[in-house]
């Protein structure tokens, strides 16, 4: 399992790559994609939509399940990764390249962990 050092992580398994103090990219972690299995579709918001820390902004579908993806920041969607709409398998294949949205005008970041802390969080969750 991969936990890149340059990213921040939410406890609900989203990664955040800060672009600036008020903008960032958000995606789903390696741990999450592994737990969810083969993803077959992703529902993304539209550019301009507001996102709120702790609230769902997208969902991912596997064959027999659907799971919400929560925003780790509060801001507005600047761009979505349209490639995922046609090739959701990118999330399984390279989760840290398969960003979901780029958020701008960020007013607040949620509680975010560094790579080491997130790895520990995953290990604890697995042992549950």
């Amino acid at each position: 399992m991969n936990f890149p050092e340059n990213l921040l992580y939410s406890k609900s398994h989203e990664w955040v790559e800060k672009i600036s103090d008020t903008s960032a990219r958000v995606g789903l972690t390696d741990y999450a994609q592994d737990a969810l299995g083969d993803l077959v579709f992703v529902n993304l918001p539209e550019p301009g939509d507001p996102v709120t820390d702790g609230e769902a902004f997208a969902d991912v579908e596997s064959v027999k399940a659907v799971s919400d993806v929560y925003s780790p920041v509060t801001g507005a969607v600047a761009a979505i990764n349209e490639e995922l709409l046609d090739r959701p398998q990118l999330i399984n294949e390279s989760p840290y390249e398969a960003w979901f949205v780029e958020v701008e005008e960020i007013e607040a970041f949620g509680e975010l962990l560094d790579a080491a802390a997130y790895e520990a969080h995953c290990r604890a969750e697995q042992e549950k």
Partner: protein
Amino acid sequence: MKLIFEKSVPGRCCALLPACDVPVRPLESRFARKDPPRLPELSEVDLSRHYTALAGRVHGVNDGFYPLGSCTMKYNPALHEELAALPGFAGVHPLQPQHTVQGCLEVLARAEALLCEVTGMEQMTFQPAAGAHGELTGLLLIKAYHRDRGDAARTKIIVPDSAHGTNPASASMAGFEVVNIPSAPDGCVDLEALRAAVGPDTAGLMLTNPNTLGLFDRNILQITRIVHEAGGLNYYDGANLNAVMGVARPGDMGFDVVHLNLHKTFSTPHGGGGPGSGAVGAGALLAPFLPAPRAAAAGGGYAFETPPKSIGTVKAFYGNFLVVVRALAYILTLGGDGLSEASENAVLNANYLKALLAPYAPPACAGVCMHEFVVTLERLKKETGVTALDVAKAMLDCGIHPPTMYFPLIVHEALMFEPTETESKETLDWAAAQITGILRRAAEDPQSLHAAPCTTPVGRPDEVAAARAPKLRYRFDTL
């Protein structure tokens, strides 16, 4: 196997219609389509063989044991098909003058009276075409009732987390907010959780009883009282009525509205996914809101009437009428005594099969079950890596339709069996031997179960590929 389009030969056809015996009058060309639809061109023998081959690749109730939990796959009597095909039913236009359709109205009125007696309801509509459609209808009745009383604050429907997925989906469709409450481990309602959830915003509660773990909720009278005292109404999801016909009536349990699946409990065939009938029965509070029209006795015969505060229509005409014909034949054949006998034997068969499987497939709950039961293969999976899915797929090789899998969600590696009353002891003994054989094989040869099925027309399908790049129609251009 080839698709019907791949068997098509240009210029081939069946001789079905006569030459035009009046002057030919083409449509004004500005309204005409550019190209004809690419429908297959076949002879009648091609067609007959195509569908005979397809029928060979289907497992119906008449092909073998079908213990699909929550679906009540009982035998569908032959008589019903004959009656539904009578020209006196099948050849009647829905908008004929009422004096020419008295027999149809009688079917609806008689079926309504009998089913109201079975459920303890006042009136019934047959307009909903399936169980989910009935749920939507019943919830719209609840909504109309609260609105009629001027109580706009009741916006929430309470649904236990062990409920069928249709319940919360129907509540959303009817414009309600869904409040999920946790169930006790046996799937029964957690009374404390219910008490905490009800309030002045409660429109109602949706409940299946017996619940989705196959247990009759012994607190049912308290449950419905809690909701009523909070000002809400109780909705009975009739999916599991096959356990309690003539044994306990939803109306007596405290329910205000009920939907029935005539295609489950009342033995009308499923047709590979419909047509069904989701008849909705209403108690005194909700009957005035039922959809229109409704057949009722009038002046020595029958006539359509519109309930005084009707929610309108949920479908064109009067519902899946021919399904009601079959259900009426079933009820008349069994009678009151036969209905309770059917339920009692459905429960006996489930308990008997459960007992035979118990040494190998532990039940999710202890004690007597109703018409269905859930086993958990969590330990088997841990010990052998064989999943509930593998076991289900191996059953296909034995000619048994698998039970419902991975439901209810509160049980891990769940298999839900519903044998129904129309299976014999011999069938149950045989099926139990097959299934326990599979479970024993899990320890010795798990790989053979991962690879199952191997005798079916096709192997396990790649569902991920199907969903990632959907191919939903035949592409002629790939020829």
